[in-house]
């Protein structure tokens, strides 16, 4: 610790403390423009120059980065210092006459006007370098930098064109002391869903009732994860909870049974160009609309357009990606009913007109048809015909919407053009992309559409072809909530049975080696995928462990001596079947 005197006040500071921090401790304010405590001092503006006096020697240093090492006297407002500060501000006023903070600081010093040439009266950049420092050292992207030199120096992206290196974090604009850097939207780079719906902070609690109920870093938004820089959260967290190194881990768990309940994934309607999803901000997928309806959504559950206004009319298009030869032939089963629910919610929350464009209205469950009838009485327009295309509406004051939905109303055999403000696409439920991968791991199978196949469609709709593995929910096929619950309960029942038994009932089909015929050739040993066959060195015969054998019969077919018998599929039985069938 050393004792320093700043403007006559004494204070004790640790060695290497900067004058700026020491002065701050004493409540002495030294003006700065290029300083931010999160960034290493750049010392470019020179506004914080103070006088350091040691013995008879006086020295001018910048307070932001001068480390105190000896007991010295510091003067932050001596005449010499103030003279430099005034001149500095006067020059900065000439450079950036429109920068408010410079004008204010100058006014404090009693400067009204600069004596120097003003090149650009609109200029706001004072070249303090904070933005460049943040981008390079904190964010770590280096998307902006200084170009040119001397008086021509300026902050720019490479070649003054929009830089791909920019991650749109906005840190530069945030740190800019004069407001010279502003964020503007670039059409291609901002997705509607990110702007209005999804959680777009880098640290958030992933969803309500999340367990554990703790914030986590979203690597898609975290600057540190992208560039290795930033780390501001760890600097501000008082409990040192931030752990950037946490990684996904693999854990091995031994289980007796598996219930596959991996669900479905939403069909991505972007490839269906005719609907303009991703192009028109107010074309939403059903999932996005559902999120918006959530009271905890960024809109607090209000149904609004991108510009924050309430829509005047909404079209709900059924069967997007389902019942479609080009995408999925099957019916997604749940869309009709949730589309009706949407219509109901819209009617409840807004004054908007609702158009349902359907192929067939499938209200198959208990009470569903009644709900449909109720909706009709609420004044929802139901048009039988698939939505064909969405285009922006020509500007027209009298129009009901900014988008036009083209469709054929098959009941009246007419083409229609419906003006709406918002379109909701009832996207298909599809099997998860990674379903086949999991299927291979679990030794179960998927159908052509990717849904998992049950052991038997009628007699074993929950089981799979592999013992101990069961299916539940939409991973097996499109399903609504009651059906999923029912299947889940059934799967749980199966599992409980296994767990309670404590032992597994084996299939009676397995292979046996008839020792007296076995020549001990060991051919079968290598064939068995389950390593169920071993060689008895004493007896010089191969032996099958019945508990491991799955009765595939590969060894049976291969045994040159015909010594192996596949129980329930013996040669005799099969020959008999062949004979029975053919003769």
């Amino acid at each position: 610790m050393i004792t320093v005197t700043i403007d006559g006040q004494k204070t004790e500071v640790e060695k290497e403390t900067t004058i700026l921090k020491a002065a701050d401790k004493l409540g002495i304010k030294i003006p700065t423009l290029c300083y931010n405590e999160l960034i290493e001092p750049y010392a470019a503006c020179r506004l914080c120059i103070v006088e350091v006096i040691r013995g008879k020697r006086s020295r001018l240093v910048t307070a932001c980065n001068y480390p105190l090492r000896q007991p010295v006297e510091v003067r932050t407002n001596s005449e010499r210092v103030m003279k430099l500060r005034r001149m500095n501000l006067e020059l900065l006023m000439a450079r950036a006459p429109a920068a408010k903070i410079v004008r204010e600081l100058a006014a404090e010093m009693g400067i009204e006007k600069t004596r120097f040439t003003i090149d650009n009266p609109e200029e706001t950049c004072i070249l303090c370098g904070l933005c460049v420092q943040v981008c390079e050292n904190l964010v770590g992207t280096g998307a902006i930098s200084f170009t040119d030199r001397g008086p021509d120096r300026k902050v720019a992206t490479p070649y003054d064109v929009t830089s791909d290196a920019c991650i749109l974090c906005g840190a530069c604009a945030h740190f800019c002391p004069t407001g010279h850097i502003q964020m503007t939207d670039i059409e291609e780079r901002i997705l509607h869903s990110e702007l209005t719906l999804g959680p777009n902070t880098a640290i958030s609690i992933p969803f309500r009732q999340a367990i554990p109920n703790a914030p986590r870093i979203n690597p898609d938004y975290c600057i540190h994860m992208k560039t290795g820089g930033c780390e501001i959260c760890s600097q501000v967290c008082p409990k040192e909870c931030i752990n950037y190194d946490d990684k996904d881990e693999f854990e091995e768990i031994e289980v007796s049974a598996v219930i596959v309940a991996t669900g479905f994934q939403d069909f991505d309607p972007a490839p269906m160009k005719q609907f303009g999803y991703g192009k028109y901000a107010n074309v939403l997928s059903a999932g996005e609309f559902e999120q918006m309806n959530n009271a905890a959504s960024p809109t607090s559950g209000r149904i609004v357009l991108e510009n924050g206004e309430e829509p005047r009319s909404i079209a709900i298009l059924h069967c997007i990606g389902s019942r479609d030869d080009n995408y999925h032939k099957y019916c997604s089963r749940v869309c009709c009913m949730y589309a009706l629910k949407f219509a109901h919610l819209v009617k409840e929350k807004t004054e908007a007109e609702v158009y349902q464009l359907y192929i067939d209205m499938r209200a198959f469950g208990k009470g569903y048809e009644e709900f449909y009838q109720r909706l009709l009485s609420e004044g929802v327009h139901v048009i039988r015909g698939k939505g064909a295309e969405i285009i922006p509406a020509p500007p027209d004051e009298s129009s009901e919407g900014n988008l036009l939905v083209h469709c054929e109303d098959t009941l009246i055999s007419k083409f229609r053009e419906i003006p709406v403000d918002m379109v909701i696409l009832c996207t298909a439920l599809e099997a998860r992309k990674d379903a086949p991968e999991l299927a291979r791991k679990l030794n179960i199978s998927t159908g052509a559409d990717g849904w998992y196949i049950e052991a038997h469609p009628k007699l074993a709709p929950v089981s799979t072809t592999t013992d101990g593995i069961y299916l539940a929910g939409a991973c097996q096929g499109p399903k609504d909530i009651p059906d999923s619950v029912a299947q889940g309960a059934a799967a749980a029942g199966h599992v409980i049975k296994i767990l309670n038994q404590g032992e597994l009932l084996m299939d009676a089909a397995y292979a046996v080696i008839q020792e007296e015929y076995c020549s001990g050739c060991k051919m079968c040993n290598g064939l068995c995928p389950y390593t169920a066959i071993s060689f008895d060195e004493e007896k010089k015969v191969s032996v099958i462990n019945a508990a491991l054998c799955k009765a595939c019969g590969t060894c049976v077919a291969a045994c040159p001596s015909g010594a192996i018998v596949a129980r329930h599929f013996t040669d005799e039985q099969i020959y008999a079947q062949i004979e029975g069938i053919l003769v």
Partner: protein
Amino acid sequence: MKPYRANLMLCAGTGCVSNHSFLVREALEKEIKKRGLENEIQVVITGCDGFCAEGPLLIVQPENIFYCRLTEKDVPLLVEEHFIKGRPVKKLMYTPPDAKAPVPKMNDIGFFKGQMLVALRNRGLIDPENIDEAIARDAYKAIAKVLTSMSPEEVIQEIKDSGLRGRGGGGFPTGIKWESCRNAEGEPKYVICNADEGDPGAFMDRNIIESDPHSVLEGMVIGAYAIGVSEGYVYIRHEYPLARDRLHIAIDQARDYGLLGKNIFDTGFNFDIEIVRGAGAFVCGESTALMASIEGRVGEPRAKYVHTVEHGLWNLPTCLNNVETWANVPGIINRGAEWFASIGTGDISESPWGGSKGTKVFSLTGKVYNTGLVEVPMGITLRDIVFEVGGGIPDGKEFKSVQTGGPSGGFLPADLLDLQVDFEQLTEAGSMMGSGGMVVMDEDNCMVDMARYFLAFTQGESCGKCTPCRDGVKAMLEILIRITEGKGVEEDLDLLEELSHFVIDSSLCALGGSAPNPVLTSLKYFREEYEAHIRDKKCPARACRQLNVYTIDPEICVSKGHGCGVCRRECPDNAITGEKNKTHFINQDACEKCGVCFDVCKFDAIQIT
């Protein structure tokens, strides 16, 4: 090895190369072969001899005959006369100004006589691309000495005792720098050779590298050993292709000989050097900016409250010295600190700050006869440099001022000609040693205009990081331009002074910290010229053309020039009227004061008032 009876030392420094010395070389080799002398006479390509004004230069050894301004056409005569008949060719020799007869021997020429070669001791004597020749001139002997018989501390003490101070401009005692770098915490450490010579018209470092790269390498190896470093960089500007190539060759040859690399001389000491090319920004000659540039970042300086010997390249202890400093080191080791300290001024028995020892290489340019590169002992007077070595001012003009230390050095007036050239005295007079630029100005130079010129350079080369250097220098330049255009007001001089002190006091690095020197010294020593510009709207030196009024003396125009009309044809503004055999007349309203008429008139009929 074959004995030759004569070595033709052909200068191949950049100056002579641009004067086609390679064509002379081809012609020489061809002619020698033609005459069957190829086994007797050898043409050797050497580094720069320094007398660049007279290039291409050829020195015939052992006779020490000095030929200059050679062209390939002179070669047959030269070979016939000198090498066949043994008669040196007088008309190709150097004739000093105002002398009647040429001076045949190099050592008798004033330009060379007044010099003392330490850093440049091998210039013109070795082929810089042949390490063996350097070794024959004792190169790498000093490495052998330090590695086998001296401890690093002893080496540092030796350098301290020699009084060697940084030749890059700062004049920081080299021994102290090495010592603090050795004592600094952090590994690995680095040594850097700053060869980013950016001062306009200065080429000391280029010259040393071009004529004797091994002295620099050897100095670096010794420094590396003393500091405890195994990695070094030479930061050389891209605009020095010849120097860079020679350095590359020298490093390759030294590596082949095991003088660089692992386990040098089997002593277990490792050191290697990498060349980094600079992109030519003046500010990258500043040590912190240079290191930023090596690291691949934008070359801009940072505050040096924490020294680079503690936190330099990649934040590790780094010892950066200039080319000339490194080149001085082997000599000190070989000949001893005492010898070195015997040259120069001051007393260094207390501290190395006490005096300026050894020699300094200056690049002498401007209004002197002998422009070129000179190495002179510290303490020599400015007068000796300008008038003895430089040969005085040409065309009978009067000496006005000399600027030392590059573009941000100060202007020293004639009163100070007897000033001894050393670090302290130059600084005291308001100038500086700098890296060794020396520009001589005569009566035709306007000091305001010169100040404007050099400030325009520093403004253009400022990195723009800090406000004073970026905007302060710009404001100063605007005022100076205003004055040279006759638009200055009385208050401008005070404002200039205020700005100068502001820029010096608050700039981040030495570029800004010294940029106002030309302005301050010209205000101090030549204030009357400023006042003439402001009050009388006149430029006493007639250099500021906007203040000149051009008229034609009708008598001279007719009697001598017969109304030749050259001025009329050349005038870009069609401001001159007249006919053949009649006097011409300048229409002052149309005259834009470009001065072309003055330049083209062969009869001095154009007058400036």
